[in-house]
């Protein structure tokens, strides 16, 4: 991203988002699994270069919506997705779009760290290798180092790149997985409860990382922790029973929610 220097440094304020163009536009997205409606007519505009948090009780459809964005729902038998979903104006939900191409530009981090049972180096290099992003070994080395640096893991693993990825601690594994995702230089990074399996210290590190990454990427994070949503996101969407209830600036959602259901959820009356 060569033009990230042009952005004003007051991004951390997290209120004034108007200058970021919209990255993802969803209109009337519905998902059903074997005829059972899981997501009902969701329309949302997600801005680029910022963190958008999806919150809501379990089974509310936030993860389902996240999986629409890189067509991971395709891998689930009986899943049906309708509606319009555009990333940078390109229709995602189109048959002509190859999910392999799509997933190269939409990375994903899962709830449980899932590094490949290979070396740290191979974990990060896997994406660039299969997409043919590096022409030589030195280029690949450079990509691996850059990705690990961005994920804040380089200092910790630089001298043991050939150790298995699974030998790292949970927090390190999750950062390795993030490095793996950014190694192919995606535009959007989806994070499905990335800290729910981690201790508070590792969580803090990941949150710090997310905050740094948003300078370059459009990040969408699903979380169960409202504190986390408040800490890392600029925009927050509240899902409930398969519908998008409320979407707005994070500060506003947490201080002055318009919908009574949002109010109830963030004050802990249900969920």
């Amino acid at each position: 991203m060569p033009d990230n220097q042009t952005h004003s440094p007051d991004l951390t304020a997290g209120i004034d988002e108007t200058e970021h163009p919209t990255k993802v536009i969803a209109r009337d997205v519905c998902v059903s699994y074997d005829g059972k409606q899981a997501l009902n007519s969701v329309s949302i505009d997600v801005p680029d270069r910022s963190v958008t948090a999806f919150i809501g009780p379990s089974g509310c459809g936030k993860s389902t919506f996240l999986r629409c964005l890189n067509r991971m729902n395709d891998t689930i038998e009986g899943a049906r997705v309708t509606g319009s979903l555009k990333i940078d104006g390109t229709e995602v939900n189109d048959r002509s779009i190859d999910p392999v191409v799509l997933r190269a530009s939409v990375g994903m981090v899962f709830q449980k760290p899932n590094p490949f049972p290979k070396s740290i180096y191979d974990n990060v290099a896997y994406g660039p290798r299969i997409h043919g992003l590096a022409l030589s070994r030195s280029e690949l080395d450079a990509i691996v180092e850059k990705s690990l640096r961005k994920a804040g893991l380089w200092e910790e693993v630089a001298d043991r790149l050939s150790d298995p990825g699974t030998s790292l601690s949970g927090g390190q594994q999750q950062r390795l997985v993030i490095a793996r995702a950014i190694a192919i230089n995606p535009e959007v990074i989806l994070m499905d409860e990335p800290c729910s399996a981690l201790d508070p210290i590792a969580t803090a590190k990941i949150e710090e990382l997310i905050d740094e990454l948003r300078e370059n990427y459009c990040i969408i994070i699903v979380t169960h922790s409202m504190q986390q949503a408040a800490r890392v996101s600029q925009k927050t969407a509240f899902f409930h029973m398969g519908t998008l209830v409320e979407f707005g600036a994070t500060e506003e959602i947490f201080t002055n929610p318009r919908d009574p259901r949002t109010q109830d959820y963030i004050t802990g009356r249900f969920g």
Partner: protein
Amino acid sequence: MTDTSDSTSIRDAVTRHLPRRYRAELRFRAAGLAAVASAVGILLVLLASILSQGLPAFTVNQLVLTVELDRDIVDPNGDGSEASLRRGAYSRVLQDAIRAEFPDVTSRRDLRNLFSLYTPLNATRLMDAVLEDPALVGETRTFRMPIADDLDLYLKGRLVEDRTPDTDGRLTVDADGSGLAIRSSEPDFAGLVEQATGMLQAEVAALEARAAQARDRAAALEGEEAEDARYEAERYDGEAADLRDQMAAAGGRIELGDELPSVLVELEGATVRLTALDSDGMTARGEAMLGEPAGMQAGAGAWTLYVIETPESRRRVDDQTIVWTRALDDRGRISTDFNTYLFTNADSREPELAGVKGALFGSILTMLITIFLSVPVGVFTAVYLEEYAPKNRLTDLIEVNINNLAAVPSIVFGLLGLAVFINAFGLPRSAPLVGGLVLSLMTLPTVIIASRAALKAVPQSIRQAALAVGASKTQSVFHHVLPLAAPGILTGSIIGLAQALGETAPLLMIGMVAFIADAPTLGLEGLTQPATVMPVQVFLWSDGAERAFEARTAAAILVLLALMIGFNALAIYLRRRFERRW
């Protein structure tokens, strides 16, 4: 109830039940330990019995003879050509060699016996040696050949019961009419006299008992049957009386017939067999078995008494042959060697020349076909069914059928092989190719089921991780899922293959359960040559008429076990190698 009393009563209840729970645990652990101990015990007994039976087959007693490869005999045309060398009278060379050891033997009957010290098949071995190195013609060489199987057993102490009683006296042997008079200065034969008398008296008692039995039967029966029984009783009585009369008439002298133990006296270079023992235990009559004992004398300790407890009429080898064998052993003409024939020869009717090479090669060729067919086909079937196939009725049907195939009796696959591979495709009978095909069919369901289980066990998160970085379905399967499932797939496949390695029944139908005297060549052309496999060899030998096959059966089982252990060790090694944590 208050909270405190509640928690006390709960604690009481828990404490009350505690001893019972611990007892149950103890019982379970004891039962488990007993199960393991008995399993190990049974296994050890099995292994010990196979080892004790099979180990003697790994050594062989060989005759080491000096053979003169006379040019006139082995090269009748005199041109040294292969055709001429093939016409050579090699059996005569061997006969001359053994006759040189015992020049006294002249009668046809004795010569025939002498030549049965080895199997005539050795002449072919000698011919092969000459054909390989024609320079041997005209030379005098030592030639090693396995001694006849029964004598091999005799030398290993497994054919007869024998002993060498102590002797104290001076022995003199004198010519006496047609026989020999033997005299010891001490009653060295007294023990034998006692033993022989006891045996004869026991024989008399047995005959009398049988007569009494027949008389009882006669009393209970009527008419013709009673007449028969009475006649039988008289016959037994007569035999008993004859025996008693004989013992009385001989004046205490006991004739050593072939129903009594054989007693041999061995002096310097000569052997006498005792034909009668005098009651004084010091004198006896005998006949020369080896050398010229008449007129010989031997001081105390310079002669030995050798008793073969098993009577001559009840064993396969007569005294004369045993005397020759002992003489050859004494002269250092017999050496005990490692039994290389067991590994360098294929099956043979003669146990001393029979080996497992044919079966081993057959097993290797058959297993190669099985491995190269069942593993790739099975693994890729499993990958398709598990990763790609849509979940519908057809897939379910295929799955159910695969599971059913795993339960089909193996002989049915043999029938299928006969009908399809031999009758329809016209492939040769008894060939490792067909055996491998049939065993592949049998192994496929096992490989598929094991591979599917291994693929199922790969966590979904790995597939998702691969897909999320943009790997295609096939890339995610081949880069991540398959390598992770490899240990399980290998273990399952090797269990299936090990089962195929030990299978006999399906091979029955396609002609691999047969006597095949030539080993197939290890190569492509060997695939269509007649062959058999290790378990079939065990089965065939276990049925062999010769006693020496008994030890060879156990030896073949040991070789098969070694093969299996090797196979499983390979499985463990490969699993360790590929095993990764996730």
